[in-house]
């Protein structure tokens, strides 16, 4: 005989789960009680359920394994919503188990009751409310299978307290999922693959756009091999950075709103666009009418609903991109480099990423990221938050391999960075993990600092403090006549009469004092306010055996370029050279 709670923990063990991010509360006490007696599973207590989900997400992004969260009902459950939606949009496999009130009182507005199955329906790959303990083993088996198979995604399991306490005779964890209606595709259609191989042969200006599906499928090596065999240049989306090493001669960079000029031009001018595990997000395509207008579109994706969702597709291939790449490799003949490769290369050379750091001037955020690169080793994992620093990181971080750059793509969730870095670090205790964050974003989950200290999670926190919500400020500067409405983080009520948002000589103090916040949370904090201090602070921070926070007071009025204004063709690029 076993109880529902014991079954749950046994299932986690059978699924190979050795770490759970969680937060307790009334109705999940039976489960936490079993965990108390289960040393094989490490439970990390975050300080907020949102952070628990992001940590499970970061763990999954870095390791490729399914992240697991355990929270209580009501507010515990609703606090996971942002994390679930974030994982859904980036197709990250996590399983979030929430406690629920007893089945007998569901629907009565019982204490801490929230309809979790209903709340999570549009933001999860699937969700379950377990009403009988007999169903629990199969629901758990199905949940883990759904989360990681096909196009991965978050699964929510709502477990009422009485089900967790109910006994079940003859429990055995099922060997297989039982979901007749769900059969994720594997191999791509051979005819379509031949068609694509023929199109590759004929194309004179082919481009590959690789997305997060390449990471999910573990197909980076196959992608590089295919690109090399056919000499096709590759652009990688934010979600796929690292799939092609950034010093590879076929690498075009990230395309889109803040993409590399070379990548954007190549996508606009190509005659064959091969999308692989990507969903043609509006931040990548810009104006849809003009996007790759002259190209034949081929699209490989495991999710049939992605194909044709945004672009009219001539060569659709539904299947696991790794298996499709393997088949494609057999079908395609080697193809020599041509004039197109030369043109594309030239675009890269003519439009390099650059910035000019005045040694006496204010610290530029790009410069700090460049110097972080020097501290990083081959296996360093870098997480980001959301905003300008995220885009600069995407552009300036050295990307050497997959699953090493963790960023909230689809949702753009501020507050993702620190907990995601924690999850990655717990997944790979021996690899250095850095989070590059902004003064706005870090404050959205700053309560996790003691989690790092107490659990000895050695995350290095790089705060690019520009005293504002930089990305929004940039939009206000460019598109809202410089009306800096609520983007200054030093603003006080009396500012309105003297300042339109950014006086260079602003007398107001920076709050919080990040160095003291770090120290108050038991980790060393360092601050650089001058260019000459940047390397010193980085060296000190990276030398700490454990977590450390490094704050860089960077230039406030600095825009991310290149930039394509929203909805414009992606070859209409602001370069900001005139600044």
């Amino acid at each position, binding site marked *: 005989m076993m109880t529902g709670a014991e079954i749950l923990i046994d299932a986690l063990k059978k699924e190979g789960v050795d770490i759970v991010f969680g937060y307790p509360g009334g109705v999940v006490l039976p489960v936490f009680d079993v965990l108390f007696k289960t040393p094989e599973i490490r439970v990390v207590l975050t300080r907020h359920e949102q952070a628990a989900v992001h940590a499970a997400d970061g763990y999954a992004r870095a390791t490729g394994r399914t992240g697991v969260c355990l929270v209580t009902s009501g507010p515990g459950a609703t606090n996971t919503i942002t994390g679930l939606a974030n994982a859904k949009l980036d197709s990250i496999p996590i399983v979030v188990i929430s406690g629920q009130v007893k089945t007998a009182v569901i629907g009565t507005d019982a204490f801490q009751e929230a309809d979790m*199955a*209903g709340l999570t*329906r*549009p933001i999860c*790959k*699937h969700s379950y*409310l377990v*009403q009988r303990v007999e169903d629990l083993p199969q629901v758990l088996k199905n949940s883990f299978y*759904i989360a990681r198979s096909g196009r991965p995604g978050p699964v929510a399991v709502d477990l009422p307290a009485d089900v967790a306490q109910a006994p079940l005779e003859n429990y055995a964890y099922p060997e297989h999922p039982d*979901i*007749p*209606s*769900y059969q994720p595709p594997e191999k791509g259609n051979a005819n379509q693959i031949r068609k694509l191989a023929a199109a590759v042969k004929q194309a004179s200006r082919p481009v590959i756009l690789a997305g997060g599906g390449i990471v999910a499928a573990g197909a980076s090596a196959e992608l590089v091999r295919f690109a090399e065999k056919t000499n096709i240049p590759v652009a990688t989306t934010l979600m796929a950075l690292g799939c092609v090493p950034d010093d590879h001669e076929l690498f075009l960079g990230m395309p889109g709103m803040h993409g590399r000029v070379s990548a954007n031009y190549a996508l606009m001018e190509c005659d064959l666009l091969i999308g692989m595990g990507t969903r043609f997000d509006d931040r990548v395509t810009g104006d849809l009418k003009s996007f790759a207008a002259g190209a034949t579109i081929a699209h490989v994706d495991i*999710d*049939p*609903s992605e194909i*044709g*969702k945004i672009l009219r597709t001539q060569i659709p291939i539904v299947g696991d991109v790794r298996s499709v790449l393997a088949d494609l490799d057999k079908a395609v003949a080697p193809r020599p480099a041509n004039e197109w490769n030369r043109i594309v290369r030239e675009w890269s050379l003519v439009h390099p990423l650059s910035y000019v750091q005045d040694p006496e001037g204010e610290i530029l955020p790009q410069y700090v990221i460049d110097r972080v690169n020097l501290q990083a080793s081959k296996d360093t994992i870098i997480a980001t938050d959301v905003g300008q620093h995220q885009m600069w990181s995407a552009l300036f971080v050295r990307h050497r391999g997959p699953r090493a750059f963790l960023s909230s793509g689809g949702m753009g969730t501020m507050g993702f960075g620190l907990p995601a870095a924690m999850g990655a670090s717990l997944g790979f205790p021996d690899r250095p993990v850095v989070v590059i964050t902004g003064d706005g974003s870090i404050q959205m989950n700053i309560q996790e600092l003691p989690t790092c200290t107490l659990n000895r999670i050695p995350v290095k926190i790089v705060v690019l403090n520009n005293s504002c919500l930089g990305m929004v400020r940039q939009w206000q500067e460019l598109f809202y006549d410089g009306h800096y409405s609520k983007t200054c983080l030093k603003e006080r009520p009396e500012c309105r009469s003297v300042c339109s948002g950014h006086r260079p000589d602003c007398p107001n103090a920076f709050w919080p004092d990040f160095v003291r916040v770090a120290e108050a949370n038991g980790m060393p904090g360092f601050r650089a306010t001058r260019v000459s201090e940047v390397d010193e602070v980085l060296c000190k921070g990276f030398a700490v055996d454990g977590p450390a926070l490094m704050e860089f007071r960077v230039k406030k009025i600095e825009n991310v370029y290149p930039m394509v204004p929203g909805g414009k063709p992606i070859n209409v690029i602001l370069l900001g050279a005139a600044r």
Partner: protein
Amino acid sequence: MTEKYTLVITVANRVGVLARISGLLSSRGINIESIVGCRTENPDVYQVHLVIRGTPELVQKISKQVQKLIDTIKVVDIPHKKGGPIREFMFAKIPARKDRSEILDIVNMFGAKIVDISPSFLTVDLSGPTRKIDQFMEMMKPFGIREYIRSGQIAVGS
């Protein structure tokens, strides 16, 4: 050009499947014109007939999204303009104190059935193509329809 379609959706018979389907449509701003759902001969399988209006491209995209739901077994979209069999069912309660025989003539003409009689009302049922039901309602209008309910459309592929 938008047209009417019936989506015939076969799903696992589970709590919440209808909510999933309707949520998917509402999140995309699509109005459901009618919806009929019932268990099939297999008690574990449920079928939903759902009428929406849209371009062929939109309907195809929606079908794929519905197909993507974990509980969905099969989705077929049937365009109404193809003229395949589409049927509806209706109950109508008609005040019939004076014009009883005239009403009965129309009822017979349409092949409707009287299912309930009271001194002041006739209750009839009628099934058939939507147009036929529309016409019947038109004919009954002068007598004043007290109350009616239509099932919404169901379809089979040809």
